[in-house]
């Protein structure tokens, strides 16, 4: 073994030589380990196994997901809203004629002339809530249609009835109502497709969510229409065709926005 001159000089110190020997042995050993192909393969083997294990977990998870998807889905918000509305209808608002319910945790009735007029009259301010005061119902061109069943006034098979808003106006100084014009149309004869149309005028009442329509000025007072948007949204209503003077119900239909 070749030793640097400095080491040679201290050869008397046997310990230094032993340290150096160990050091060299260590280097040789490390070099041998780095190039050992078996150790490398053992390492890869472990990695592959771990990957396989993850794959299995993934497959199990997919199987679980599939099983979960077979279960019935959550009920959509719309259905819940409609159900709540139907329950609320059965409970009743507890309000007198001419009044609407403020809603919320503490029930309160206020006059429907005071809804959506820019002044908070409900204790919770709900009479001016944007949702309550939505103008969606009265948008010009809105059509509400359903299968009308006649129970009085004329002899008629059930047939489709359509109420279409043709004009609407809200006065700045009296915003509690939206005054509207509308057309009621229904098929009189299903073979000849003869259609009867009735011009109507009236208003939308926010507090009671009611579309109230009577005969247009100068037209024969044959029919009026009352629609209550009491099914939780602005797209569904409970409509009745009535005699304008007595409000006697001639026909009724569950209307959907078309």
């Amino acid at each position, binding site marked *: 073994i070749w030793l640097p001159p400095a080491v040679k000089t201290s050869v008397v110190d046997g310990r230094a030589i032993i340290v150096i020997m160990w050091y060299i042995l260590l280097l040789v050993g490390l070099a041998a380990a780095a190039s050992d192909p078996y150790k490398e393969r053992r390492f890869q083997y472990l990695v592959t196994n771990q990957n396989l294990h993850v794959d299995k977990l993934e497959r199990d998870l997919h199987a679980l997901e599939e099983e979960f998807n077979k279960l019935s889905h959550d009920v959509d918000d719309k259905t819940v809203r409609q159900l709540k509305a139907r329950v609320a209808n059965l409970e009743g608002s507890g309000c007198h004629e*001419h009044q609407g319910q403020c809603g919320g945790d503490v029930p309160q009735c206020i*006059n429907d*002339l005071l809804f959506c007029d820019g002044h908070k009259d409900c204790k919770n301010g709900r009479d001016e809530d944007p949702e309550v005061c939505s103008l969606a119902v009265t948008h010009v061109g809105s059509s509400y249609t359903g299968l009308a069943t006649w129970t009085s006034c004329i002899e008629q098979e059930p047939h489709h009835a359509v109420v279409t808003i043709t004009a609407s106006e809200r006065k700045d100084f*009296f915003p509690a109502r939206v005054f509207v014009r509308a057309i009621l149309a229904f098929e009189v004869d299903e073979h000849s497709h003869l259609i009867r149309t009735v011009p109507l005028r009236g208003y939308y009442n926010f507090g009671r969510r009611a579309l109230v329509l009577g005969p247009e000025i100068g037209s024969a007072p044959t029919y009026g229409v009352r629609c209550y948007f009491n099914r939780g949204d602005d797209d569904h209503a409970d409509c009745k065709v009535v005699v304008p003077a007595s409000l006697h119900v001639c026909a009724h239909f569950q209307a959907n926005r078309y």
Partner: protein
Amino acid sequence: MKILVVLLALVAVAMATECDSLTRLKVKAQWRRAYSSGHNREDFAQAIWRAIFAQAPEARSLFKRVHGDDTTSPQFEAHALRVLAGFDIAVSILDQPEALKAELDHLEQQHEGRKIPDSYFDAFKTALLHVLPAQLGRCWDRAAWSACFDLIAHGIKGH
């Protein structure tokens, strides 16, 4: 020919509604339905006054004494009910000319010297003619109301 003339005359009468005796009865009956009672009457009055002040905000200054700046104050509620009560008397006796004259003279006296411009009476009329159909919901005759309101307002203005 005679029939045609009569028909035309009838059409002419129907077109230009005046506050004639039949119209007065119609207005009376419709007022009875709209005027209602209790809380609903207060709210009916409230809606009318909100509509008036929305049209003529400067008119509030005439009602300082009765707290016109806040239409929901008890003082103004009382005033609003008083006004409707006066209007109720006038409408109720539309078909009794002498009694109507006496009431309108009385109301004219109460309004005398308050310097109420005609535009405020117009605002009152417009408010009434919008809140009434909203309250009635059906079967109301705008032309009849317009004619008979003008008659009453004319009596109160005195000119």
